[in-house]
């Protein structure tokens, strides 16, 4: 599983980081989401998917 953040769409809500702190970090510069694991290891995939689903802007995709 790979997750990607569309930074043109990300608004920095930070919900992905709350759902999956081991998958998403937030940029101290602008609060935008940064994916820190690629690919996402199996034990983090549930959390990563929740991060994808709970993005208010639908900026995150999973493959």
């Amino acid at each position, binding site marked *: 599983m790979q997750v990607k953040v569309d930074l043109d769409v990300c608004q920095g809500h930070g919900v992905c980081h709350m759902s999956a702190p081991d998958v998403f970090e937030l940029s*101290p510069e602008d*609060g935008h989401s940064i994916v820190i694991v690629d690919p996402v290891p199996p034990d983090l995939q549930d959390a990563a998917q929740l991060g994808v*689903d709970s993005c208010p802007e639908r900026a995150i995709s999973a493959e």
Partner: protein
Amino acid sequence: MRIVVVGASLAGVRTIQALRRHGCDAQVTLIGREPGIACDRPPLSKGFLSDPDAAARPLLGPEDLAKLEVTMILGRSATDLAPAEQTVGTDSGERIGYDTLVIATGSSPRLLPGLEPRPGVQVLRTGADAARIRDALSARARVVVVGGGFIGAEIASTGRRMGCAVTVIEPLPALMIRGLGPALSQAMTRRHVLAGTDLRLGVGVAGLESGAPHPAGAAREPGAASGGQAVRLTDGAAVLADLVVVAAGAVPETGWLRGSGLDLSDGVLCDGLLSAAGVPGVYAAGDVARWRHPRYADPVRMEHWTSAIEQAAVVAANICGQGRTHDALPYVWSDQLGGRLQIFGRVQPNDDVHYVLGDASSDAFVAITGGDGRLNAVVGFGAVRELLPYRKLLLGGAPLSAALGLAGTSA
């Protein structure tokens, strides 16, 4: 196993998606009152209202829906639950058996006596509702918003930005007071006054009078709602309106569950696993669920978008036997007055409020709220990045003193 999900909106649909991702191959039936899957609602009170090209986004495209292999019973309402025989009735007279039931019927806009929806009186729930409000705003209608919660404040803000005369009627003394507490709600209320919204606080609506003439000389845009009406307030004043938007909160859709043995005092009472109290095999998710959140003394019910998604994930995990507690930090956001208002946690009515960035009247602010040494909420306006370190403390259960220390403020 037969799983029945009642409610084809955010919580119900996301529950089914999560079940399938967990590899659950149960037979799933989805019962929904509307003819299709609901749309994504947050934009409807936000960007949608000022963007003539915006379309309501479905929660799920047809291809993704087909992949879920769900039996859909759409355009039908669930009418009752018989827990002893484990069946749900629908308004076609059918009875549908389940081994596990997910109640995700959500909530409906609270209707006010005398202000039932009709031409010129509108609630905001569906894409069609939002489109009608958008039409009126773009025609510079005179808008009266009844209810000063988040949605009312968003509509008012957008209406002002689009050049409409906007009046908000709110029986409480400030806008968004339930979500923000007294001090922060005052601060946001002042901003709405500065934006030119006519606020009538501490009064209610006595009734609606039709046929009020439009004031002479006022230029009308073509397409504006016609046939003016006057909203009569409990203090005797009258406000002319082309469009009345009733934004008086929402009530959980539990009427169909009466007599089922569930505790329905404000939504469906659940334990921390979102399993309905007293009736085995039944879960609730979304606006309709009231549950024991480990952060709070009393059971809570939330109408937040993110909460519905998190609850869907928890219910699906628990149907698959994982035993997960729903303990996510509450989050709500609202776009208004050219900024984004964000609330993490829950502001308690008696909380002290400390501004750690800006103040009540600055362009952007971050405030932390708490009491008895406890950090309860982080509230930001136009400060997405600046609130992050405080939110981190809140997530980690840090005391109020730690957050004040971070700000360099003395407690």
